[in-house]
């Protein structure tokens, strides 16, 4: 048992001290932030070249005090098209928009943009949205509709849940959306983390088998201790890296946000005129929504959920690390064999990720419930359901089943491992693996 500590230490420190670890630990969150930063920056700038467009208004709806919108400058000085087109040919303006008379009896309104160069999609959307409001106001006025009445027609509908028996349970329509979001994200993250670190265990096992150091090791340490030392050591590396990532993402995003944060967020919203209109229309409402989302995130019982996430990370990791260790010991340097066996082993994980996606929208379907209890799928599906407050008996049953699965799998994996690591030049078929379990 004393020796297992040395194996854990070796697995942990050789990895943590390696350049790859430092790079992935620091660069991944940086890349994450950088990607969103760049995205925000690009969106906020839109097209960079300034355009001057003449507007010939035959209706009288434009507001001549508005001289620009984003990168487009408006020129209202032209009265007829010919004059404008003459300047267009002399490159004084980029194009001409002509507003024809408005027929209040039709839905459609066609403006013409005279130019040989098309507007970019975002430019054209932006202009359309600007004129949509002006035309709307014009129509309201002409039709003699009362604007306050019009607002009343436009009903906003909410469907609020209300608990019947459990009066203390706090729920709102936003709760389930936020919970589903968090659950989905965690399930997805767990899927990747389990695959990444599980395959590291496999690589570590095959390395020792291929370079034959295993023979020296096994003469001083029990195969079980060696395997568990590896699994635990790599698992600790995983925990370290995840913790670092969380800390770094918080730090980096704080820095990033204070740098060009609010602008970027606003400009992301601006890119879609639809959204912007919405935001402008219902700015207080959106703010309320944002606040309640944050409130929901805070009000999730993290003290209950975080330990459970840690639990399912460990369960998922141990389940698949044991499988990968067994596979690694059996195949050695036969990469093809390794690939096909790994594929079989990761299949349940991939399936559970898809079940996890469906569990986001229907957390209490029988598929979601049972796959969050059954072995192999539970470590991904249960974390998806956890923020949505599944019944306690399901959580407990899932935990018991998971622990039993891990114990049995490790026991079987150790049996395969023990034989596999000392076996050379023999093809490890699945039939062979079953035979090794009975040695």
């Amino acid at each position, binding site marked *: 048992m004393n020796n297992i500590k040395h194996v854990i230490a070796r697995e942990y420190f050789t990895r943590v001290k390696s350049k790859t670890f430092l790079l992935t630990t620091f660069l991944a969150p940086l890349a994450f932030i950088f990607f969103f930063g760049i995205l925000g920056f690009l969106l906020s700038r839109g097209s960079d070249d300034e355009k001057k467009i003449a507007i010939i208004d035959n209706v009288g709806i434009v507001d001549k005090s508005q001289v620009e919108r984003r990168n487009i400058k408006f020129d209202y000085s032209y009265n007829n098209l010919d004059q404008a087109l003459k300047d267009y040919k002399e490159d004084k303006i980029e194009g001409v928009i002509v507003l024809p008379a408005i027929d209040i009896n039709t839905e459609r309104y066609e403006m013409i943009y005279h130019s040989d160069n098309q507007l970019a999609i975002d430019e054209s959307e932006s202009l359309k949205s600007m004129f949509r409001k002006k035309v709307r106001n014009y129509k309201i006025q002409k039709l003699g509709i009362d604007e306050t009445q019009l607002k009343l027609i436009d009903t906003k509908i909410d469907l609020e849940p209300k608990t019947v028996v459990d009066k203390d349970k706090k729920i709102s329509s936003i709760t389930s959306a936020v919970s589903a979001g968090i659950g989905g994200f965690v399930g997805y993250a767990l899927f990747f983390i389990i695959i990444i670190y599980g395959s590291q265990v496999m690589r570590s096992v095959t390395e020792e088998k291929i*370079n034959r150091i295993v023979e020296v090791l096994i*003469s*001083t340490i029990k195969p079980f201790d060696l395997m568990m030392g590896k699994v635990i050591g790599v698992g600790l590396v995983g925990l370290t890296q995840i913790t670092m990532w969380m800390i770094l993402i918080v730090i980096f995003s704080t820095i990033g946000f204070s740098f060009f944060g609010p602008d970027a967020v606003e400009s992301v919203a601006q890119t879609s005129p639809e959204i912007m209109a919405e935001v402008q229309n219902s700015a207080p409402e959106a703010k309320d929504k944002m606040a309640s989302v944050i409130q929901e995130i805070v009000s999730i019982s993290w003290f209950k959920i975080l330990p459970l996430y840690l639990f399912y990370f460990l369960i998922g990791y141990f389940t698949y690390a044991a499988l990968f260790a067994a596979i690694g010991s059996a195949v050695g340097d036969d990469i093809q064999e390794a690939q096909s066996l790994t594929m079989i082993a990761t299949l349940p994980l991939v399936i559970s990720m898809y079940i996890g996606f469906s569990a986001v929208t229907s957390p209490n379907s029988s598929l979601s419930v049972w796959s969050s209890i059954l072995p192999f799928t539970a470590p991904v599906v249960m974390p998806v359901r956890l923020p949505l407050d599944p019944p306690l008996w399901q959580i407990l049953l899932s935990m018991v089943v998971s622990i039993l699965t891990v114990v049995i799998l490790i026991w079987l994996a150790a049996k395969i491992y023990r034989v596999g690591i000392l076996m050379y030049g023999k093809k490890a078929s699945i039939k062979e693996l079953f035979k090794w379990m009975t040695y």
Partner: protein
Amino acid sequence: MSILSLRNVVKQYHNHRAVDDVSFDVPYGSIFGLLGPNGAGKTSLIRIITTITAADAGSVMVDGKPLDNLTPRQIGYLPEERGLYKKMKVGDQLMFLAQLKGLSKPDARSKIEHWFKKFEISDWWNKKVDELSKGMQQKVQFVATVMHEPKLLILDEPFSGLDPINTNLIKDEIHRLNENGTSIIFSTHRMEQVEEICKEIVLIDKGRIILEGQVDQIKNDYKENIFRIGFRGKMPANLIGSQFEILRDEADHVMIKIKDGYSSNELLSALIDHDMQIESYNEIKPTLNEIFIRKVGSSHE
């Protein structure tokens, strides 16, 4: 008392018996040869002694005690297939292996530094293994095998891949360790090395011992009374008779086999009165290689 004592050891795999009722003793302080063709069961036997696998039947005693968890700390095992972590620094690697053998950290460090100084490789501590040549890796592996001062060393083909200089270096170290009381089991196919290094051997084939004993004794047992006589002059023509048989007749020497029931003195006296000058007279004993081929060859027919 012996450092290693095997009694009726059996190891059965699914469809073949790798070790079949093997018993032998390795005396304290000896250099003992464990010989056999490929697939004879040597590796299986070594794996049992090093507690990598367990015997199905029979008993193994190391230093008078049955095998247990602490046995490996008394054994230094250099496997035929060398292995080190390629990406790990030499020093860290040896520290790890030493700690597995039960050495404390400072102990491990001082032992490793001692060997590094001896092999003049002190500047290798921070090198990664894959920066070293194959011969250099062998040295590191040797240090890994002996650094915890085992009572019993098991060396499987320790010289394979070494140049003559490093071979001598390791050979000298083996002898020095042996003089200081370490018992050594030496497993190889290279019979000339066995004759040079080992005093006692067992030869196994198909899991069974087919030959064992002192090297000198074995060579005596397998000698065929062949003498090489170097001479000047003329070989007497009437020598060939019922007593002797000339195997080879060259200008300056002959090889003569003395048939059963006659002694070498009779040959000498038969030669001595003739018109020839005897310059040398040697008994030709078979080499271990010849005995090996004879024994293993016959069992394979």
